[in-house]
């Protein structure tokens, strides 16, 4: 299996400067190797730096330190043998399907006849026959992404980079496209030697990849590498397929133990005022609690199962599950979510009772909410400016994160009626219009 190495990343690190002079680390210790004939998946949640890594490989940005080499040559700018497929398709609306596909060849100054021949061949291969003269706006999402594939394949790249290529499509279309892609790949009909696929969909990774790199966030790093040896075509219902999906869920929900020394604060454990809070609406929170408490789960649910039941991607499900865990409404461990006693009580309660329970948990387990409430209680005016809390938060996090965190807390506090916030004047207060 260990054939020619197409691409190597050695100890790649990427950071962006923050306005206050410090640096924001997004990728650390990235080691990756792509061999001929492999599909490698980069699996992680949003913010884990997987798309950043893809852009480094594509030569669209440069690593802060470390090396990316393609066929032994360091990458400094877009390499001729690497083509990319984008999540948003990124087709030019003023060009026809044919012109969109031909663009890459025109850039290579190929003779007109050759461009025509190769473009038509690529269009044919990807199943777009008959659509050559259509404009992107006339096509469905699935057909548009086929154009995206044809445009990448027409330049005969050695490596195909795919940045969540199926996540903007509906379930059915995405599955058709995946199967078509795997068929072409399996039959060796595409002029490519290796594929890197960025995804946040665990099943997609297991379905398509030969190797999966699981990414962790803050900063983005590789948590583990999983070899998928199931033969193609893979069956989602196959017990060994399910088992693998389950084990990746377990891995991704595992609580980080002994985080990097001197590292930044992890999201929830050891929560202080300075933790970044996720934007999760109370509707989602109560929705998930209701779903888990109801039959057939009765309080304990397998995450992959409930994700597919609720048609949620892990990107959507995990933040909700983690927020429940933070609020002590649920325990997330080993790929399962289990409601606590209060979580069950919440799920079965009526509106007013729910608000009471939520308020108790909010003020007990979210230090920032408790802090704001305390400040408001202590002041004679029972009001405080938003900037006061923003300043405090900015000691711990970026301006943007501070704003987001405060927004999240306001959302929850409004639901719990713990305190009020007037966005027009940027003031917190205790008064609740009754």
């Amino acid at each position, binding site marked *: 299996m260990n054939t020619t190495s197409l691409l190597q990343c050695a100890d790649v690190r990427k950071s962006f400067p923050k306005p206050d002079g410090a640096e924001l680390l997004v990728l650390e210790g990235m080691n990756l190797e792509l061999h001929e004939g492999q599909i490698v998946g980069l699996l992680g949640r949003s913010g884990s730096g997987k798309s950043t890594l893809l*852009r480094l490989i*594509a*030569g*669209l940005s440069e690593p802060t330190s470390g090396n990316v080499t393609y066929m032994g040559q360091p990458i400094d700018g*877009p390499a*001729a043998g*690497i*083509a*990319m497929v*984008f*999540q*948003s398709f*990124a087709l*030019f*609306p*003023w*060009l026809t399907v044919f*012109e969109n596909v031909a*663009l*890459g060849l*025109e*850039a*290579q100054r190929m003779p007109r006849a050759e461009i025509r021949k190769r473009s038509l061949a690529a269009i044919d291969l990807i199943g777009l026959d008959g659509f050559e003269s259509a*404009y992107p*706006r006339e096509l469905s999402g699935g057909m548009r992404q086929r154009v995206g594939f044809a*445009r990448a394949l027409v*330049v005969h790249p050695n490596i195909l980079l795919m940045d969540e290529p199926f996540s903007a499509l509906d379930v059915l279309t995405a599955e058709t496209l995946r199967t078509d892609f795997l068929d072409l790949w399996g039959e060796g009909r595409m002029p490519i030697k290796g594929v890197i696929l960025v995804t946040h969909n665990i099943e997609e990774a297991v379905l398509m990849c030969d190797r999966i790199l699981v990414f962790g966030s803050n900063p983005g790093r590789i948590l583990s590498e999983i070899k998928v040896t199931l033969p193609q075509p893979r069956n989602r219902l196959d017990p060994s397929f399910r088992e693998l999906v389950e084990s990746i869920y377990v891995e991704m929900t595992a609580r980080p133990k002994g985080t990097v020394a001197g590292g930044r604060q992890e999201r929830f454990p050891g929560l202080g005022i300075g933790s970044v809070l996720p934007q999760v609406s109370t509707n989602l929170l109560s929705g998930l609690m209701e779903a888990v408490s109801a039959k057939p789960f009765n309080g304990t649910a397998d995450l992959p199962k409930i994700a597919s039941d609720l048609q949620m991607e892990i990107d959507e499900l995990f933040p909700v599950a983690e927020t429940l865990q933070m609020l002590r409404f649920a325990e997330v461990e080993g790929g399962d979510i289990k409601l606590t006693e209060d979580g069950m009580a919440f799920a079965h309660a009526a509106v007013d009772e729910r608000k009471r329970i939520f308020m108790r948990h909010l003020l007990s387990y979210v230090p920032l909410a408790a802090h704001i409430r305390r400040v408001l209680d202590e002041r004679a005016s029972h009001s405080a400016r938003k900037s006061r809390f923003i300043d405090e938060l900015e000691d711990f996090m970026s301006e943007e994160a501070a704003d987001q965190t405060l927004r999240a807390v306001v959302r929850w506090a409004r639901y719990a009626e713990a305190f009020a916030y007037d966005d027009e004047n940027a003031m917190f207060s205790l008064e609740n219009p009754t």
Partner: protein
Amino acid sequence: MTWKLNPDIYLSPLMILGTQWYILFNVIAGASAIPTEMRYVAANFKVTGWLWWRKVALPAVLPFYVTGAITASGGSWNAAIVAELASWGDTQVQARGLGAYIAEATTAGDFHRIVLGIGMMSLFVVVINRLFWRPLYYYAERKYRLT
């Protein structure tokens, strides 16, 4: 004043130049509206030079250019009507045209000629809009709008 130039001609660049800002700012707004992923596509497939202008940049800013041009031409018209009769101390510079006609009629208090002048002006605006700007605008919107 000394060279006795034809005001029909030398007032024109003045008013055209004065309204190009509309186009400039619209085009800047258009250029910054190109989605990042489209820029990446151009970089990834090494679309550079003239090809880049032809297939990416110019089409992307065209709708914005047209919007700017409509505003600019409106502004120019406005300026033209006023500028056809410019005063410099006691010297009056007068170009031939609708603006001068209306201004003259107003000074003379000739009600019928004012109505005729303004009516013609409105007709001009409507006709030019219908026959030129509107089709151009719809064409640009339909074909080149980024979605």
